[in-house]
């Protein structure tokens, strides 16, 4: 699954996610579809989130919306919200994977509970970075 989240100069966030699902899937399975609220979410009042991983667990945990809701209603920062959901709620259910997330203030998070995630990001100084493994 691939995805992107962004914040533009007008202060608007957006999220996009695309996937082929899981190998050998049957029965019209849409468990890995980036459902709005599970795998994809964007709201200028909270954050933009795109997820990758074991999709049916992301649906059960409503991962993307849960992260945004924690920011909006509880006032926690994006790092804390991602930690609570990806390493808490999702992992408790047995779900593996990760998210990328951006807040309207520019805070950028790349959070995953697997040994790696293909990822890239722009830092606050404008430099672009790429990484694969958790220790990268």
């Amino acid at each position: 699954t691939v995805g992107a989240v962004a914040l533009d100069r007008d202060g608007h966030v957006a999220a996009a996610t695309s996937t082929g699902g899981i190998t050998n899937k049957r029965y019209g399975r849409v468990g890995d579809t980036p459902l709005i609220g599970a795998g994809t979410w964007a709201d200028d009042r909270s954050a933009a989130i795109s997820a990758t991983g074991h999709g049916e667990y992301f649906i059960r945990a409503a991962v993307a919306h849960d992260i945004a809701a924690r920011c909006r209603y509880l006032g926690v920062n994006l790092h804390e919200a991602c930690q609570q959901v990806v390493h808490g709620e999702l992992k408790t259910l047995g779900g593996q994977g990760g998210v990328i997330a951006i807040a309207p203030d520019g805070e950028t998070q790349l959070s995953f509970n697997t040994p790696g995630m293909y990822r890239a990001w722009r830092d606050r100084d404008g430099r672009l970075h790429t990484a694969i493994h958790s220790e990268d």
Partner: protein
Amino acid sequence: MTSPIALAIHGGAGVLTPGLLSESDENDVHEALLRAITAGHRILEEGGSSLDAVEACVIELEECPWFNAGKGAVFTHDGDHELDAAIMDGTNCNVGAIAGARYIRNPIRGARAVMEKSEHAMLISQGADRFLADQQLPLVSNDWFDTPLRRRQWQEQKQQGGPVNLEPGHTEKKFG
């Protein structure tokens, strides 16, 4: 006053431990990731919208056979490809999504078309294909998404017998 810009992308997660990919393959992945984020970054730097930026990044990733989306999408049990995508605009919470589409070259373009040119939030399967056929977007035959790597992974999965076990700890080495 203008906002700071920010951008991040992902290309899948899983047991991506050092040594799983050759150094050459890892370099290819890094280059592909850089190409994808650069596409969106350029738009943001020039004052473009976050919506255009995320779409541009995902199109680049869909065109790269390393990632499970667009070209290089995994095979279904029936030996074809079903593509899913979603996009959301934080300005107004508009959304568009497709699932089980088979012919749209860049599924994220299809999701955006659903958002901007239909009154719906999500279209699936043949209905999505029919809608997308009317949208003046590039279409391809379903086998355009094939790659030798994905075919090999699919055949290995089939030889193991039975459906994919979706319980924790039994997933593929890399998924998402």
